[in-house]
């Protein structure tokens, strides 16, 4: 049995570890926190995951919360006009549902499942000096530590990284007691609300300890009115402030949230980070090498809700690459090739995400406008969240967008 060490017990580390157990690898996961500590900790994400990622979980019987978690069947776009009304408002229907299971529920459950299925878990906040010796004890060491300090082992890839500063200030609350949007009272949908010059409000139907919930998530332009979290308000003040901002900038969302309450005392989060692409091989002083996975190597802004999806894609690609390697050594060239295989999938996601951080160009506004009367367009926009490489073919490029609009209006006639 080949011996593999995975550092970090998040979406990528645990999905990879659990999927390797299915193929008889000797896998150890090192987690900075125990299941109890993760359960009792702060929310970490809004973690909306689309069909492909959910299917990877089903493939390895990791979909433990599929039943109770709301099935997200649509994805809607609203754009605020200057007078507080909506310039645009529609919802696209997903071919297959998405879901968001609170990582505080999922990761502890997966850690326990990993042990049940024969994986070894060691609780420890790993340092570079630990890794320096540990590379000698394993055939492969994978660093799945998210945006933690260990990323310092992996140099920034200047050619693939676009940003040098955070592009949004993030603010999240998990709440109970909100109705669905009145436009679709029978369907759960992710809502994307853009307020030009200010930022965005996402709302994700999720699942937490106390059951189904809604997760409003502000993405504020730095220096703007949504950039107001540096004083780290306590939970109830945090939620109160989010509500007030909703009332002011997205009043249609405020209407359904004004009576809502936080799901628990750790249900708020604020912060920000710089999107980055890193080199995949980390070098250690003693001559060992480690392979970075998911957020460690590609961390995009969450504006497109792709980080967990990417973590899942990355874990799936790395699993295949490990299996195909057979008994051959996991050397640096294999590590680089493995990452390039993932980058083929992550690159279009990164390109689209970086585009969405900019004010929408004219061709995008034309597409969004046409989508209001044409379900083909809005459904395509919604479903491409599952396969963002599709945006390259019609959404990102002005010429292709024009062509696409011509095509769909012809077939409509």
């Amino acid at each position: 049995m080949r011996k593999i060490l995975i550092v970090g017990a998040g979406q990528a580390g645990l999905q990879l570890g659990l999927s390797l157990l299915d193929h008889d690898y000797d896998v150890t996961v090192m987690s900075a926190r125990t299941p109890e500590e993760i359960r009792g900790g702060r929310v970490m994400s809004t973690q909306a995951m689309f069909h492909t990622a959910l299917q990877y979980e089903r493939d390895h019987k990791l979909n433990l919360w599929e039943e109770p978690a709301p099935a997200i069947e649509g994805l809607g776009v609203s754009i605020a006009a200057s007078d507080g009304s909506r310039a645009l408002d529609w919802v696209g229907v997903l071919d297959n549902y998405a879901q968001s299971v609170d990582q505080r529920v999922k990761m502890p459950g997966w850690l326990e499942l990993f042990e049940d299925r024969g994986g070894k878990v060691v609780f420890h906040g790993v340092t570079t000096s630990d890794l320096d010796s540990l590379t000698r004890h394993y055939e492969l060491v994978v660093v799945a530590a998210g945006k933690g300090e260990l990323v310092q082992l992996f140099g920034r890839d200047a050619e693939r990284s676009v940003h040098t500063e955070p592009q949004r200030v993030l603010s999240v609350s998990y709440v109970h007691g909100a109705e669905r949007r009145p436009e679709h009272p029978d369907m759960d949908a992710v809502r994307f609300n853009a307020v030009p010059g200010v930022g965005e409000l996402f709302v994700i139907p999720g699942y937490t300890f106390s059951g189904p919930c809604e997760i409003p998530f502000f993405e504020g332009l730095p220096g703007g009115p949504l950039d107001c979290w540096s004083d780290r308000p306590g939970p109830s003040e945090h939620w109160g402030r989010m509500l007030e901002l909703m009332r002011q900038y997205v009043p249609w969302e405020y209407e359904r949230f004004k009576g809502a309450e936080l799901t628990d005392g750790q249900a708020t989060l604020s912060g920000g980070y710089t999107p980055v692409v890193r080199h995949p091989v980390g070098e250690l002083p003693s001559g060992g090498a480690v392979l970075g996975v998911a957020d460690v190597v590609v961390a995009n802004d969450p504006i497109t809700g792709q980080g967990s999806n990417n973590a899942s894609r990355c874990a799936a690609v790395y699993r295949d690459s490990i299996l195909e390697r057979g008994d051959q050594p996991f050397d640096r060239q294999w590590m680089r090739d493995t990452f390039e295989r993932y980058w083929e999938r992550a690159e279009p996601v990164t390109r689209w995400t970086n585009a969405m951080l900019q004010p929408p160009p004219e061709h995008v506004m034309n597409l969004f406008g046409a989508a209001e009367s044409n379900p083909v367009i809005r459904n395509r926009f919604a479903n491409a969240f599952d396969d963002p490489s599709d945006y390259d073919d019609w959404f990102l490029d002005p010429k292709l967008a024009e062509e696409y609009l011509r095509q769909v209006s012809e077939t409509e006639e």
Partner: protein
Amino acid sequence: MVIRSDEPGDAPGGREVRSRRVRPYALTGGRTRSRHQLLVETMISVPSYDAEFAETLLPESRSLYENARSPVSLAELSASLSIPLGVIRILVSDLAAEEAVFIHPTGHTYQYDHTILERILDGLNKLSA
């Protein structure tokens, strides 16, 4: 082994507020789960020393195995062997899986903060490095 009961109330340092509601969703297959954690103060020892087995070990595991012939804590092992704590934890857990070392049970009576202890230990290791 340190048995981590799933009762959130028994850990020191304000952890008692943690949610009990999680149990129905934790999906532990119906068995009663005991969680194991190697703390810095956890004691280990070699139940029956085997010189031949020692020969088969990698140098770090081997010195750990030799040093645990009489009961010793993870902290002491890390400090005296100058091996980072994370590596000690891995090696101990591997040796324990082979039943080559025994992990002594610890109570929940410790009143100090483990992360502070770990930081002190890291600091000591850096000084001696």
